[in-house]
């Protein structure tokens, strides 16, 4: 059931890939704008590069997350799926995994932009990929749950960030810190602790949100 739900989500995302491209352009242009907030100071830009990358990804994520429930609201598709003899948890995890993949790809795509704009390169690519994957998982688990709520109300564009931003403070903090240590050098080996914190956050919210999702979509 989970595989079927995931397949449906991935197919949906593949068919709307132009939307993904637009979100990427949005993220990249926000990275460009952040540099105007700091000024043409190469050293400072490099120092803040990790924070800018994650803020760019966070802002873009509100677009992809709310979009992921857009199709469900048309023609009451969500209600139709809930009528199927299936566990709503499978629907949740299918969507959350699809969102996670999308955000990870988006994050990876934003890295070259960051490298070019802020001169913030690194050779520890596997570790950077791990951090992006874990951070994207931290965004997608509560983000998918909140998107399921806010997609059904008016003012959804405002409500989703309002609910999501305070919640993901620990994940954002840990992702920025770990990414920044990877880029700027990590003499004290601290990035491992931040990755562990990120993993713990993911574990808590992937299980908790899966448990609660059934209650959110029930009629």
């Amino acid at each position, binding site marked *: 059931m989970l595989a079927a739900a995931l397949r449906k989500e991935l197919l949906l995302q593949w068919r709307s890939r132009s939307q993904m491209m637009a979100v990427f352009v949005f993220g990249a242009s926000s990275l460009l704008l952040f540099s105007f907030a700091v000024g043409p100071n190469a050293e400072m830009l490099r120092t803040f590069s990790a924070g800018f990358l994650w803020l760019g990804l966070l802002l873009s994520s509100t677009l992809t997350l709310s979009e992921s429930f857009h199709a469900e609201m048309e023609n009451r598709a969500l209600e139709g799926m809930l009528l199927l003899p299936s566990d709503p948890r499978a629907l949740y995890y299918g969507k959350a995994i699809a969102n996670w993949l999308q955000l990870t790809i988006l994050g990876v795509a934003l890295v070259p932009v960051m490298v070019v704009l802020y001169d913030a390169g690194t050779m520890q690519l596997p570790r950077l990929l791990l951090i992006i994957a874990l951070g994207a998982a931290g965004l997608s688990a509560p983000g998918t749950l909140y998107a399921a709520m806010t997609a059904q109300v008016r003012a959804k564009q405002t409500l989703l960030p309002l609910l999501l931003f*305070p919640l993901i*403070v620990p994940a954002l*903090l840990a992702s920025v810190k770990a990414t920044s240590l990877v880029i700027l050098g990590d003499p004290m080996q601290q990035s491992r602790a931040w990755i562990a914190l990120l993993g713990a956050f993911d574990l808590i919210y992937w299980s908790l*949100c899966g448990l609660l999702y059934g209650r959110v979509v*029930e009629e």
Partner: protein
Amino acid sequence: MRKGWIFVALGVAFLLVGSYLGLFVAPAEQYMGNVQRIMYVHVPTAWNWMLAVLYAFGCAIAFLFTARTKWDARMEAGLEVGTLFAFLLCCQGAIWAKPTWGVWWDWDPRLTSVAVLLFAFLGILALRGFVDDPQRRAVWCAVATIIASVDLPIVYYSVKWWNSLHQQQSTPQTVSSSFHLPLRLNAFGVLFLMIGFIMLRTRIAEMRLEREMAGPPVSMGEGELA
């Protein structure tokens, strides 16, 4: 309704006596001087804020298990009082921080966690305002309250680790016995005030719910329009 007002009056009385003792009778603190006297309201607010968050969390869980509307009304009251106390805590903390640390704001784990939860609760209250179907509103707010409350300890510890890499803030000194009485009186004062507020606010929420249930049925198919 009546009992709520009695608690509010009791809280105000305790606060008046406790604050009088704290402002005029208790000695000034050795290092911080008179600035430290804000502790007599700040610490009781902090304790009771934690109680309010726990109360809202408990009501949210109780609602999800029982689906009885009285828990929704109680949760609404807990959320609102928790938001109010978090706001008060941020203001009091800033007032205390300016003369002591020289800045209005510091990335202290306690201060930051309170601010994060303040915004999380404001978000949930906004969600309450935007959902018209009472049943849905109750379930969603209960879910959001549980998720936000679980976040609180994670925020606290992550900010603590994060900040410890920059600077370590001095912890409040252990308190001498001459400070105890005003602190205790005010702690009970704020507690009674909070209980009174929650009772009054719960009654208002219940009356609103009753009116909503009795009114014309909420139109279906909102998702279609959106």
